[in-house]
């Protein structure tokens, strides 16, 4: 029977039913969204990054650039070989190093070092970088990504754990090619 407000008993129950479902859905959404967002939220605390040794200083000849590999510090059981990572280590001299990501600053393809021409070149879209990682030519808007590094007990150690991507500020942080 409709009452004076024109809401029947069953109509009210249906609305209460919708409300009840809404509350349950909102409550369940909390764990679901937190689960979905976990790959983003976890990294905020810097949990992914650690210091990783690449090898003894003497393994890298002075004035040369060598490929080094390391295992990503953050590993899950199904990662397989994808956690093995490569980087370019340039020993300028003594304890002076530069460690570059292999990922091109354009779109992430692996750059290769050509000692003869003193350039890093990318096979995908033709980006080129000088030996110090600065941009030489091609589509990249900045120089190669550099890992933070330190020498610890004679070991070249880098802070790694995240894939380098150009990010939204690619154009803003771009280094201009230096005049030779």
């Amino acid at each position, binding site marked *: 029977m409709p009452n004076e407000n024109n809401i029947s008993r069953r109509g009210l129950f249906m609305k209460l039913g919708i409300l009840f479902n809404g509350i349950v859905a909102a409550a369940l959404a909390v764990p679901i969204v937190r689960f*979905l*967002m976990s*790959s983003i939220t976890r*990294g905020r605390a810097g949990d*992914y990054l650690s210091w990783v040794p690449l090898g003894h200083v003497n393994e890298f000849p002075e004035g040369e650039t060598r490929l080094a*590999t390391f295992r*990503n510090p*953050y*590993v*899950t059981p*199904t*990662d*397989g*070989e*994808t*956690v*093995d*990572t*490569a980087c370019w280590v340039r020993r300028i001299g003594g304890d002076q190093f530069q460690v570059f990501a*292999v*990922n091109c600053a354009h*779109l*992430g*393809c*692996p*750059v*290769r070092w*050509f000692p*003869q*021409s*003193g*350039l890093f*070149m*990318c*096979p*995908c*879209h*033709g980006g*080129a970088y*000088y*030996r110090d990682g600065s941009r*030489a*030519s*091609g*589509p*990249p*808007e900045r120089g190669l990504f550099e890992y933070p590094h330190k020498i610890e007990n004679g070991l070249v150690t880098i802070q790694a*754990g*995240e*894939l380098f*991507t*150009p*990010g*939204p500020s*690619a*154009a803003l942080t771009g280094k201009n*090619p*230096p*005049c*030779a």
Partner: protein
Amino acid sequence: MRIISQIGNWFDRRLQLAAPIREVTEHQIPRNTASWWYVFGSAALTVFLLQLVTGILLALIYVPSASEAWSSLQALNHDVTLGWFIRAMHGGGSNFMVALVLIHMVQVFLFGAYKFPRELTWILGVFLLLMTLGMAFSGQVLRFDQDAYWGLGIGASIASRVPIAGPAIVKAMLGGPIIAGATLSRFFALHVFVIPGMLIGFVCLHVLMVLKLGINEWPMPGRLVNRATYISQYHELTKKDGAPFVPYGIWKDMFFAAFILLAVAACALYFGPFGPTGRPDPTIIQTVPKPDYFFLWLYALLSLLPPAMETPALLIGPVVVIIGLLLLPFLSGEGEKSWRRRPIAVLTVLLIAITLGTFTHLAGFTPWSPHMNAWSGDPVPERFLHGTTALQRRGALVFQEKQCRNCHSLGELGGQRGPALDNVAMRLTQDQLIRQVIQGGGNMPAYGKNLSPAETTALVAFLETLHPVGQPPAREAARDFVLRESSAHP
């Protein structure tokens, strides 16, 4: 026979599907739409069903784990009976599906079928195209090889450029900080559950609307669409010159569907399965990652856009294109349907087709990339050394050792990143050559730090010899003038 019809009746009393099915089969279509031009949609649906079947078959063996996916694909290729054939059907089928969806879309566009009252059918179709492309990309990831690995890197690099949310989007896409196990798992979920589920739902609605609204009549030049009168005109047409969908319309669909399935199978037999290429080991950097066929145009575009244009083009371009496609039926929902009287529509299709075709063609031989294998082992051809001085020959050696031919060709051999140098002395004077080598510019790196003054002198001396016999090299006229003046008035 009576038993069969009794069984049929028993089921229909419970399912109650006979009447709607009869309605579908007997619904009147304009007689002239029983055309070979109207078969692409049903062919795309057929290939989609084939993809569902072959996909489920592959999932019986495939392991969606970054540590085992590659090996399980090898097992499919080499150990499992006819695993190679099912992989080839599924991989080739994806190419067929993208192609058929695009052809279908072009046909619908040129025949004005997106106009009133079929706007929503077109809009769902746009989403179906996006989902098909999403399936193509995620499927390429599931073929977890080197190309898949670096392709994900490219995807992440593009996603990272979104303002503010970029880094978060990258982590959400990769399922963590790097391309690893979680990445493959989530692309598996997308490719196998999320996108196909949406595809099935959207395909059902899309087909339902085609049946409810009726197939687009054959466009006649001059017969304009008017919202007020179209529906009654269409019904009059189907009443006057109509025929039941079964069998008038459907037999061509059936023939073409069978032909396409046969073509997919023939391609699978002939070409075999694609990949997997090298292991997804990021420490193997001697690789030239390339996307699958339908994304090659994008690969070319990303090389050829000016750097400053790239981020806006990547982030705004797709949004503009998608919004444009979605708005199309509202911007031109009435009026002329026939392509014969829509020259801009025809030119648009041609322009897009030629542009995409050209980019795809260019991506086949990547003139913008340095030749990574043009080692110093490629000697300067002898004919460039006849009658040269010792200094010029030393320059030819520098040219060879410094790998100039990674980017420049000489005697038809070498990269196409920079201009061919066979006649460079005709274009640049000595001073310009020195400046270009030392300072670079115009997309050439500067070699000043990597060449000694003696090497630069020798290299430029060699480059100055690169001009056709009998034609003088470029000279700076002002310099001749100054030299003449100084010799006349010592």
